[in-house]
């Protein structure tokens, strides 16, 4: 698995089990959303994170609620890794009043600022400046909080990538830019849309470290993120981490995925699953027992089922909510 000894040393069994749990939560959550969307029970656009769990979890493992993340249209995984409540998430996706955003945001705007989750974003590239803003607050207020910007390979060609990273670099902000290079932006491949060979290659143009990791290897992500977070907290500035990964589902639910090649699908989805890989590793290295992991899986399944019931049964928002929350100061 190519993971260095130093990680093994710092990685507690507790952390390993937390990470396993979070990955399974994401997977089960997304599979469930996939199913209920297919049944026509969910409104709107839904983009699933399944397959990329190691990225969100490996990074968020180093963060506290005071640290911020900015997410993307594919935001469920980031939410879960950052500790958002599953019931609140599912209710949000159902558009219910008990949702994290009272049903007003939905899948594309799911957020929980108390957990430092600054929102999924319907705008590709929207997160770069927003992460920089959280980093700026940390710098001006002299806290040791960090901000993480998750973004896709498609977003890497948006102007905000450039503006955000340049600002973080010149101000030496505690911001970590985490590329989720899953090979596609909608139906367009990374190779077609991006002139760089790797996203991390662009880091040199900002004089910041750029690292490439196997995004299917939880511990590789975990380790790179550990270094980057440490640098950020020490006032050593931003890092760009490129995680090579794959999305198991289409761009959004309903996508026929004609652009994907079958071999790659099988290879990635069936033979390079990040959860399976970590499970094998954890067992082989005595980070957890089979019973531990089974128990986690069980408990997660129940939690997800609970969230669906909660989402389904929760009330729709009251009509009065329509024009509430537009302003703080008046309705």
């Amino acid at each position, binding site marked *: 698995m190519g993971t260095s000894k130093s990680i093994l040393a710092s990685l507690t069994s507790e952390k390993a089990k937390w990470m396993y749990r979070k990955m399974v939560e994401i997977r089960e959550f997304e599979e469930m959303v996939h199913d209920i969307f297919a049944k026509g029970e969910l*409104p*709107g*656009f839904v983009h699933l994170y399944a397959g990329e769990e190691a990225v969100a979890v490996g990074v968020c493992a180093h963060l506290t609620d005071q640290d911020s993340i900015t997410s993307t249209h594919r935001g469920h995984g980031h939410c879960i890794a950052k500790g958002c409540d599953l019931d609140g998430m599912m209710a949000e996706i159902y*558009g*219910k*009043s008990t949702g994290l*955003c009272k*049903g*007003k*945001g*939905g899948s*594309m*705007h799911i957020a929980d600022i108390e957990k430092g989750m600054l929102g999924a*974003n*319907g*705008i*590709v*590239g929207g997160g770069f400046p927003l992460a920089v803003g959280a980093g700026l607050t940390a710098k001006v207020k002299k806290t040791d909080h960090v901000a993480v910007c998750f973004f896709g390979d*498609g*977003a890497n*060609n*948006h*102007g905000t990538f450039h503006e955000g990273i340049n600002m973080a670099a010149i101000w030496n902000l505690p911001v970590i830019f985490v590329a989720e290079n899953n090979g596609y*932006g*909608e*139906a*367009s*491949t990374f*190779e*077609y*849309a*991006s002139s760089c060979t790797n996203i991390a290659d662009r880091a040199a143009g900002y004089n910041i470290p750029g690292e490439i990791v196997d995004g299917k290897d939880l511990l590789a992500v975990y380790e790179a993120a550990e270094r980057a977070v440490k640098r950020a907290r020490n006032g050593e500035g931003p890092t760009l981490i490129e995680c090579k990964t794959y999305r198991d589902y289409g761009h959004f639910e309903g996508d026929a995925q*004609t*652009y994907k*090649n079958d071999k790659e699908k099988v290879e990635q989805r069936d033979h390079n699953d990040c959860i399976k890989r970590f499970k094998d590793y954890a067992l082989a290295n005595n980070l957890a027992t089979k019973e531990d992991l089974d128990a986690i899986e069980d408990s997660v399944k129940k939690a997800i089922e609970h969230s669906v019931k909660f989402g389904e049964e929760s009330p*729709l*928002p009251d*009509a009065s*909510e*329509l*024009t509430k929350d*537009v302003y703080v100061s008046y309705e």
Partner: protein
Amino acid sequence: MTKKLTFSKAINEAITLAMNKDNDVILIGEDVAGGAEVDHLQDQEAWGGVMGVTQGIVEKFGRNRVIDTPIAEAGYIGASVTAAATGLRPIAELMFNDFIGSCLDEVMNQGAKLRYMFGGKARVPLTIRTMHGAGYRAAAQHSQSLYALFTHIPGLKVVVPSTPYDAKGLLLSSIFDDDPVIFFEDKTLYTMKGEVDEGFYTIPIGKADIKRKGKDLTIVAIGKQVHTALKAANQLSKKGYEAEIVDPRSLSPLDEDTILDSVAKTGRLIIVDEAYPRCNVATDISAMVVDKGFDYLDAPIKMITAPHSPVPFSPSLEDLYLPNPEKIMAAFAEMIGDNSIASK
């Protein structure tokens, strides 16, 4: 000869006809072909846009003229402006009108002003197609109807069709117009079917269409809201009132005469615009009628719009958010002081 087509297919057909007619017409945008340079992908399987509206076009015209772009709206919309000024006639797709936030400069400060700033020595024959409209459960950043922003800006033309027939004829006019045109497509209309003429035809930009004749009330409605207005009109008809429905079709330029003539006849005006209420097209039309047709008015002009709030995700809230026939009926009831109408 006419045939039944969906709104989506009518647009596809217009693009195809334009590209057949003129080699300078290109189609450019995010995944407008879909899956560029993917080895195994046959062009006929390519996406054709996120909603499949441009499906099949790359197969016919090839990737030199149907160009997938990176996710870089400022980049490719800006490029389309000068591509237009230097000899092409681009159809650029801005997937959702909400994404104008990433490329307003290219539209407002470059494309719209180029000709004027250059003292009339340039032309920008650019069409920007873009999706708008609420009702798709697409939440705050994918549901706006931002045509007022574009109508505000001199140098742009703004077209909002409500039927497949209009969409095809107006898109062909837009493409062959020598000024930049923003062409709005309501995402909830794509599956709507309607009669469309075969072959090439155009509908002049700047000419409103009377979608229903009536004498008691004028309803000016924009885009999809034409259909909301038609429903209301049917119900009003049962109560003995005949509403005339004016579909401006183009907001800039606006066919003031057709609106004024209708109001002169009916004396009453309701404007239905699903956009945000402040500085929107409803206020624009109201102010125009007050300025130029004050004496025609027997009652205050009423505007049915969204509330001053972002578009909510929750279906129950989104349904409340949008105009509907009941709101139109209630406004008319108030206007003529007849409560029996509103209560149905």
